[in-house]
């Protein structure tokens, strides 16, 4: 029996990780080639594709496709789970009925490879951690300066103005760095996307701070220092700027993929909570 679902109902049934794709596939029915289609989504338990509204499609059929050109042909017995109306046709959602272990592993690897977020997440994890250490160091240095600033030699010379508010700026920098480091401990939960965006915002704010500081180092000509360890510190600052900038760029480049995965995970959780 055909099951026509609304968009919301169909989305409610997306309970597994899946990736968008455009793989060519062949539908076989009663041992004969019935139709050629393009897969639109692939998950570890099912897939979907589009057909014209006038096309006939049985509820049970065999699907054959390759995950990559010249790779092994995967043959799966499929069952139609839903038929959703889309502009110009129907989107068919199917689940796997019979699938060999080898084919299952191939599909799992394919899906996991495209939903793997560990690369960009690890990059911002490390960047946020390094920024947290940098923030702690700066606060310690600020406290030391504050302490000796009250002594005789500390009062013997003045530096640039605006130091009164600098402590607040440093605390904000530390808060942003810490928040960027810990805010996404549970990124894969219902509020994962909000947390992820919050983390990105915190990281960008901390990044702006260290870029500003590095520009001020250049203006103050600290780079001309005769002290090796001060130059070493400045090199680590340059590394921090480039590493954090690179991490942010990678995350922004992967934003679409991250958004998709977090959407799917959000729907997965939402679907489970609706059933409970």
């Amino acid at each position, binding site marked *: 029996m055909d099951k026509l679902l609304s968009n919301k109902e169909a989305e409610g049934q997306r309970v597994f990780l899946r990736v968008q794709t455009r793989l060519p596939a062949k539908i076989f029915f009663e041992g004969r080639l019935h139709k050629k289609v393009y897969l639109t989504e692939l998950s570890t338990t099912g897939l979907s594709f589009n057909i014209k509204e006038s096309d006939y499609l049985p509820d049970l059929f065999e699907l054959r496709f390759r995950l990559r050109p010249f790779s092994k042909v995967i043959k799966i017995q499929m069952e139609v789970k839903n038929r959703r109306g889309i502009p110009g046709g129907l989107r068919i959602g199917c689940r796997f009925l019979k699938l060999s272990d080898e084919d299952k592993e191939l599909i799992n690897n394919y899906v996991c490879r495209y939903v793997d977020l560990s690369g960009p997440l690890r990059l911002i994890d490390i960047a946020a951690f390094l920024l947290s250490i940098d923030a702690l160091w700066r606060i310690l240095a600020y*406290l030391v*300066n504050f302490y000796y600033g009250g002594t005789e030699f500390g009062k013997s010379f003045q530096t640039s103005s605006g130091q009164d508010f600098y402590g607040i700026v440093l605390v904000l920098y530390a808060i942003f760095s810490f928040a960027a480091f810990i805010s996404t401990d549970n990124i894969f939960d219902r509020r994962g996307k909000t947390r992820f965006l919050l983390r990105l915002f915190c990281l960008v704010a901390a990044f702006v701070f260290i870029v500003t500081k590095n520009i001020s180092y250049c203006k103050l000509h600290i780079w001309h*220092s005769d002290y090796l360890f*001060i130059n070493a*510190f400045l090199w680590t600052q340059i590394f921090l700027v480039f590493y954090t900038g690179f991490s942010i760029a990678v995350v922004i480049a992967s934003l679409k993929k991250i958004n998709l995965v977090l959407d799917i995970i959000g729907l997965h959780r939402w679907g489970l909570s609706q059933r409970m």
Partner: protein
Amino acid sequence: MKKFLLGFIVGMFFTGSLYFFLQPDATVRIKMGRLLDRDTLYLKNGDVILGWIVQEEGDKILVEVEKGTFILNRSECKSIQKNTFLRYLRELI
């Protein structure tokens, strides 16, 4: 895990800070102060002296270094930077 790691680092930081600022004999504070107070003298012959300017009288400068003290003619100095490390610290934070 991340919260634990950050908590540990921040805890170490606060413990170290409390030790530094509240220790009764002030040994570490004095050593740190002496390091920050250090002056740098750039001589005309290219040498650089790291020490503490104890006294300045006319053309003579009494300089203390790790091994003792000596008197230097101001005319031998190209430039003098006082409180070098405190200056750098203020500019770096």
